[in-house]
């Protein structure tokens, strides 16, 4: 392996012609709403103290997230995608402040969240960042009326002066998510899964946020209901100028909603960039593998490439590149050395020795199927 690596070409003209309003180059995110640098979150999963003393059991850390750098531009949708256990939900929860990062920083409009130590200083941030959870059956208090569920953020942030004003605001929110004001009197059990997810969205919108973190918002829903919720989310984004961080394992849903995509594997973002770049010219072998596993609904007769192996245990990740045991292109360097994220010719950020050294050809089979023809 030569020590001198070929220089990474500077991010020049976007490789994919601009189809919309912006060129496909992540470097062009000038003023990100959220910027995550070197984010890591470790969980201590050691045995209890006495077991460690008497049995000599070592401390064990689960590295759920281990070095994530992403930027989320204002008014757009950034998706994190990956298989279960890859750390995408942990990233989401750390960004909203539910977890304290073990390392790294989360910047919201240029302010490092770690510097907001006092509750009073954090409150404006919490008002502006809200979250939607996966399971609409678990995320709504069954003993509260919908009115109170949605009013809670309004009351917590003192956004209304009178009880009357709270009620009016809740009615407005309910209509915004295509329910009726009368639904506020009901309890969550009176609603279907899709309607409950609308209530979650209304609650998230109650504090006039700028940034919504949606953790698998449609995974528990049927496809026709998923379509309703995804359409609603897009409408709200247009009306209110919201920025989304969308967490999902469903690549098709991600393709539909996103402007930017990050692919996670074992706590790291292995590839991220503009949606079109990542889907049409995936560079990282794991991204290609994921794209290959999408069930083919167009009935082109394409056999899915059966992928061997499974995601390793994050408590005991493989050395070097975490993907090397499953990677068809792995060599000695991949086993020994962790790849850093580099900008590829396409403008996406890829953490792969093979891509960096030019060992992996640019074009991947699944890219052919992504319709970039229409412009």
């Amino acid at each position, binding site marked *: 392996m030569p020590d001198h690596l070929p220089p990474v070409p500077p991010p020049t003209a976007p490789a994919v012609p601009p189809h919309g309003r912006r060129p496909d180059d992540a470097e062009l995110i000038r003023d990100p709403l959220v910027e995550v640098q070197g984010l890591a979150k470790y969980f201590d999963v050691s045995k209890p103290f006495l077991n460690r003393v008497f049995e000599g059991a070592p401390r064990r850390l689960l590295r759920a997230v281990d070095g994530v750098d992403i930027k989320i531009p204002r008014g757009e949708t950034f998706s994190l995608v990956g*298989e*279960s256990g890859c750390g995408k939900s942990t990233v989401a929860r750390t960004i909203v402040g539910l977890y304290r990062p073990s390392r790294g920083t989360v910047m919201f409009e240029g302010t490092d969240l770690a510097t907001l130590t006092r509750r009073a200083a954090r409150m404006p941030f919490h008002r502006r960042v809200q979250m939607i959870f996966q399971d609409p059956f678990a995320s709504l208090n069954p003993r509260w009326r919908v009115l109170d569920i949605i009013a809670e953020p309004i009351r917590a942030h003192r956004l209304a002066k009178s009880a009357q004003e709270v009620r009016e605001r809740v009615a407005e929110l309910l209509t915004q998510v295509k329910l009726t004001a009368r639904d506020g009197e009901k309890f969550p059990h009176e609603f*279907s*899964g*899709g*309607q409950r997810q609308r209530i979650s969205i209304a609650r998230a919108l109650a504090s006039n946020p700028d940034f919504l973190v949606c953790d698998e918002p449609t995974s528990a829903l*049927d*496809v*026709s*209901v*998923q*379509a*309703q919720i*995804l*359409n609603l989310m*897009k409408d709200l984004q247009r009306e209110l100028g919201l920025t989304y961080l969308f967490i999902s*394992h*469903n*690549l*098709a*849903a991600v*393709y*539909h*909603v996103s402007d930017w995509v990050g692919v996670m594997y074992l706590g790291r973002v292995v590839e991220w960039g503009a949606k079109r770049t990542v*889907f049409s010219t995936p560079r990282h072998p794991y991204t290609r*593998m*994921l*794209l290959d*596993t*999408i*069930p*083919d*609904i*167009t*009935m082109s007769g394409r056999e*899915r*490439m*059966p*992928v061997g192996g*499974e*995601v390793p245990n994050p408590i005991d990740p493989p050395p070097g590149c975490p993907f090397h045991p499953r990677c068809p292109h792995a060599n000695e360097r991949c086993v020994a050395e962790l790849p850093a994220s580099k900008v590829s010719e396409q403008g996406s950020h890829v953490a792969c020795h093979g891509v960096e050294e030019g060992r992996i050809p640019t074009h991947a089979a699944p890219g052919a*199927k*992504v*319709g970039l023809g*229409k412009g």
Partner: protein
Amino acid sequence: MALLEVDNLRVEFPTRRGTLVAVDDVSFAIDEGEVLGVVGESGAGKSLTGTAIIGLLEPPGRVAGGEIRLEGKRIDKLPPDQMRRIRGAKIGAIFQDPLTSLNPLYRIGTQIVETVLTHTDLTPTKARMRALELLKEVGIPAAEHRIDHYPHQLSGGMRQRVVIALALCANPRLIIADEPTTALDVSIQAQILALLRRLGRDHGTAVMLVTHDMGVIAETAHRVAVMYAGRIAEIGAVRQVVGRPRHPYTVGLMGSIPAVGRDQERLTQIDGAMPRLTDIPRGCAFNPRCPHAFDRCFADRPDPIAMADGKVACWRFDQAEAAAEVGHA
């Protein structure tokens, strides 16, 4: 003669407030080596159809009408002990959550051997060899080693393979797979579906694949039945139903699925939700959500109408038009 024939199946749940009809007038057949996909949203009755066939309906649910025939013999009226002999021997079942299908207290080898001994007259030694063979067949690496593991030591994909191995113990003629890949990651999903397809090809096993995922159906099934509110809305060859859906519900369902490479601002949206069993509307159950509903849809319930190579339960395709389309095709 088809391997499995279901005619006018009706499943009811008597309740204090009246009888709920969860599955109504469902008819289909599965040939040897064929994979029939049954697709629908939650509450459509697809899982109940499967459980009715293997005779595992939870009381008070019961088969209230129709016939289920396996290899030409009726199995819906069999006494429990006879049905138990058919279950496992002739019909295997795979459920969504592999962890609840396996006993956490026994090694997987023990569980497979027990099933093999129940349904065949092999000796215990031979049965263990058969268990090993089965584990290899479903693609468990280092099967000699894994056979002595407990379920918790295996990953989700491996557990689902063990469940499939259990279903295969007695070489059943039919496998009912109820959401077999829903709890699994996409990469593992592809492996399991490839395995199901291979069973049909190599052993002539018929598979009834119950799922909500059209993508899974499109690449695995030969024919597909779309269920809505307890009835079959459309049934036919998978190319036909997925590629040229006819029933307005299928059309909406296909349009509501996002696809990689399909750029669209909004997904096709079917407003509303599937009716609850307590208030299924008069006429066609889909009429409140149907963009094409006309007066007849609100009055009469449509029966499946034979079309080119399938059936559609929609008044828009009543005899005259259906004949015209068949002639056209």
